[in-house]
């Protein structure tokens, strides 16, 4: 699978409502951020967790989110950022206006 996103792209983290082992924490779902970096492609932990090692691999990205947008009561600088890795299938393109960076 070719990576759909590149550094600088604005993305929205989906809530896929999947049961079982997932690596997209609750606090980041539904949030809009900016792709910082393509990490390469990796076996999906959701597959690995049930013993499926046959792939396919999934592109992984580091995505940045302004802290003040994650937490309304955030205390710190407006420039503070949370950086986290999100697999491709948990992301959708976000309208440029959805993220104020």
């Amino acid at each position, binding site marked *: 699978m070719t990576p759909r996103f590149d550094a600088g792209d604005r993305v929205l983290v989906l809530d896929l409502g999947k049961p079982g082992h997932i690596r997209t*924490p609750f606090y980041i779902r539904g949030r809009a951020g900016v792709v910082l970096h393509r990490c390469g492609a*990796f076996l999906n932990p959701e597959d690995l967790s049930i013993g499926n090692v046959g792939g396919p691999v999934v592109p*992984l990205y580091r995505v940045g989110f302004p802290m003040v947008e994650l937490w309304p009561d955030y205390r*710190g*600088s407006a420039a503070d950022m949370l950086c986290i*890795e999100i*697999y491709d299938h948990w992301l959708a393109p976000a309208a440029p206006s959805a993220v104020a960076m």
Partner: protein
Amino acid sequence: MSAHDDHHLHDHDHHHDHEHDAHEPLVVEDEAGNIEGQILVDALQSLLVERGLIFPGEVRREIERIESPGVHLGAKLVARAWVDEAYRARLLADGKSAAAELGVGVGEAQLIVVANDAGTHNLVCCTLCSCYPRSILGQPPAWYISKAYRARAVREPRAVLAEFGLRVPDDVRLLVHDSNADMRYLVLPERPAGSEGMSEAELAELVTRDCMIGVAVAPAVA
């Protein structure tokens, strides 16, 4: 290793069922729990050996292997980056390959090295479990895997850092890295003031584990 001596570890009155959520964070086994853990893992090992899945001696060798990485490996990378600009650039571009140049093997998929500078401070955590660059820093400290650190580092990082005695000025941008998937993170601290005349080996001595997690900075050299 003295901080634990008077509390937590050998608290005989500690009971699992009502200790944890009250003042929470660190669930450790009491002495009985440690003996249970030892019995259970010994039983598991004997079963696996009996089934021919693990050979006698393999566990001991694997323990030696996982005991050997430690802070000195990360410190070696940092010290080299402090004295060699080109190396620093390679380390920031591809941590795993740059570590390999110094003979440091990174077992994880990739090592992302994030640099502190006058305007940026980096902090590493793992909210979902305890992901940590084990192959270059060894096992994570107890507080890193505590509920409090895992829960709060992404929400009130400046308050967490203050508990470690580190105040990040408001005009310094704080980047918090939640190591939730395949990457592992190492903070490249700023080279401390006063270290100008020091050799690479002396510099490595200044690099602590906490600096490379981001809960501390390398203090100025007197």
